């Protein structure tokens, strides 16, 4: 070996260097992820006098760093909604998954004296003091999804309904199986991260809805909200049950993996219900050529609505169609059941995973 290394000629070095440079160039060419057609974020349309320009307001926005499609859609929707209004100045702070950083960035917004703050806390409990501080400084806080410990920390809460999501999925599955005349169907559930409250809420709703039909969950396994874990868990569930009637998967991102496992096992005797409502799953529901027949939403469009609410509150307006002169303090969104029949209505609101 020493002999051959000593014989390393300049030409050989040149070739090695050239190969390395070529490989580098090839790799560099592969990093781009931009498409020519960009997806426009979901926005609400002008429906009332409320949308006419009013007092100019500045709305602060703070959210965790995107760790999957849903959170990414939250930030995108908020920014897009703010752009809709000529009287709104949007003031986002750097997204972070560090509680201390998020607290200090909210304090910065307070110091700047914004008119309202929309915040999706990384951890509702830990961020409660920051919410209280803003409220005490007279700045209305719109608490998005992950709820603060006390109602004193927010002017209005708007968020999704995890229990309702499970309920909607259970009702769709229960109704469909009842129509098929199944008396003791095999129902599988692929849950998300098991130690999160939201996963437990979803599963509880699912069980409650099914029990109304006299059905129970035959097999329930938790994945990690990732594609890889979805594939792994579902491939094992398919081995455990040689016949399945229905599957509910909690999260559409993880559902890509669940679906891959189903395709790899060549199974199609059941139907599958998704969760959260990604555009990808909705397109499959629309195409109707996979086992995916339905998804129950947990819409990231709540961020668009939160910006609208922040604007209304800071301009002293109410919600046009309600009699009350002020925006309500607690708004829990409905988890919609998206099937082939109504998918066109929801597809524009689906998020890209």
């Amino acid at each position, binding site marked *: 070996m020493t002999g051959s290394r000593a014989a390393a000629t300049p030409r050989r070095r040149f070739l090695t260097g050239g190969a390395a440079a070529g490989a580098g160039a*090839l*790799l560099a060419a*592969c990093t781009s992820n931009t498409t020519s057609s960009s997806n426009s974020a979901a926005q609400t349309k002008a429906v009332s006098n409320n949308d006419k320009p009013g007092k100019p307001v500045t709305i602060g926005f703070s959210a965790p760093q995107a760790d999957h499609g849903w959170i990414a859609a939250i930030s995108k929707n908020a920014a897009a909604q703010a752009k809709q209004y000529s009287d709104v100045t949007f003031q986002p702070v750097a997204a972070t998954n560090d509680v201390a950083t998020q607290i200090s960035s909210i304090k910065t917004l307070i110091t700047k004296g914004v008119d309202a703050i929309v915040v999706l806390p990384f951890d509702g409990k830990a961020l409660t003091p920051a919410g209280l501080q803003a409220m005490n400084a007279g700045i209305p806080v719109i608490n998005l999804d992950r709820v603060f410990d006390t109602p004193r920390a927010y002017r209005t809460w708007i968020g999704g309904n995890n229990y309702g999501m499970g309920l909607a999925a259970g009702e769709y599955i229960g109704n469909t199986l009842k129509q098929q005349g199944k008396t003791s169907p095999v129902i599988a559930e692929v849950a998300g991260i098991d130690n999160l409250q939201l996963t437990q809420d979803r599963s509880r709703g699912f069980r409650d809805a099914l029990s109304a039909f006299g059905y129970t969950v035959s097999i329930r*396994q938790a994945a990690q909200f990732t*594609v890889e874990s979805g594939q792994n868990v579902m491939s094992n569930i398919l081995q455990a049950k040689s016949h399945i009637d229905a599957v509910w998967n909690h999260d559409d991102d993880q559902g890509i993996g669940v679906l891959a496992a189903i395709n*790899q096992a060549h199974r199609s005797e059941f139907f599958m219900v998704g969760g959260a409502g990604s555009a990808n799953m909705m397109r499959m529901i629309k195409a109707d050529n996979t086992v995916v027949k339905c998804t129950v939403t947990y819409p990231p469009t709540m961020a668009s609505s939160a910006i609208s609410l922040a604007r209304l509150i800071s301009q002293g307006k109410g919600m046009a169609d309600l009699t009350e002169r002020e925006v309500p303090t607690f708004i829990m969104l409905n988890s919609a059941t998206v099937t082939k029949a109504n998918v066109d209505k929801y597809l524009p609101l689906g998020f890209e995973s």
Partner: protein
Amino acid sequence: MTERTDDAPAAQGLGRRPAREGLQAPAAGRLGLRLPASVAGRLWELRSLSLVGVLVLLAIAGVVTSGGNFLSVSNVLNILVSSSIIGVVTVGMTFVIIGGGIDLSVGGLVALASVWATTLSSQQYGAWAMVVCALLVGMGAGLVNGLLIAYGRLVPFIVTLAMMVASRGLAEAMSGKKTQLVTVQSINNIATTNVFGIPLLVIIFAAVVLVGWIVLNRTTFGRRTFAVGGNTEAARLAGIDVRRHTALLYVLSGLCCGIAAIMIISLTTTGSSTHGDLYELDAIAAVIIGGTLLTGGKGTLVGSILGALVFTTVTNIFVLNNLASEVQNIAKGLIIVAAVLLQRRGTT
């Protein structure tokens, strides 16, 4: 279990190919054997055998609790497919650990290679470009690890820890933390293709293990790996370019991550920065319960693969019986301890 893993194999290599190794006579004395090679070899086989015992026990548990379901052909293939990706990563990890190092970056590298190979621009170039891209990213990152460790004289634990964080960060930045769907059908087809009833992923896994076994046990490179991990100074005095060899071990581990990335892309039909989560722990655990010394110099590839199989089999049995994830994790911890205890009984 026919694997031949001798004590102080560098010395053996010396006996066989002194000319090619370019060893000097005094170095041979420093490499002196502690045990006759045949006795040591038998002890190592016992270790692997005890792991087979663990697998048999698991299989019995599987059959008792879930009947014929467990031993059905489709379930056994399912276990092998589930093991294939972490198995390929474990092959690279075995080399690195036998060579006296550690590679904490494997999970991050799988994620990075999977994302890099599935960006829209990579997918434009088609399946082969994606494969080459994943392999180059894995080897390139492995080379950075290797150069920093071997020539920068940094501690492997720190360098690969830094790479673990950085590579996953880069994967997140590149993908915008989104799941990248693969539209190149020939890549997705890898996971659905069977050759004579055996999934292609399992065949790739077997091929990597076979090549790894030959390289580790039947080539100069393998003997040097044992030598470098067993006693770096002796290996250096024996004329081995220790630094170059160390760097190559990390490139090899990176290459395995690249192969694993292609497999995971195909299995999940996506590239994602969340792929390969905790692979470093799974691979290291498999290598250790497989009987490889964490300090390097001793170990078997077959043991590592059996170790990886044990973990996937446990997961499979738990899902078949619909047990909750917290119970699975407790059981896995107990099995690691039990496997290592069994091995110690086997050797002492």
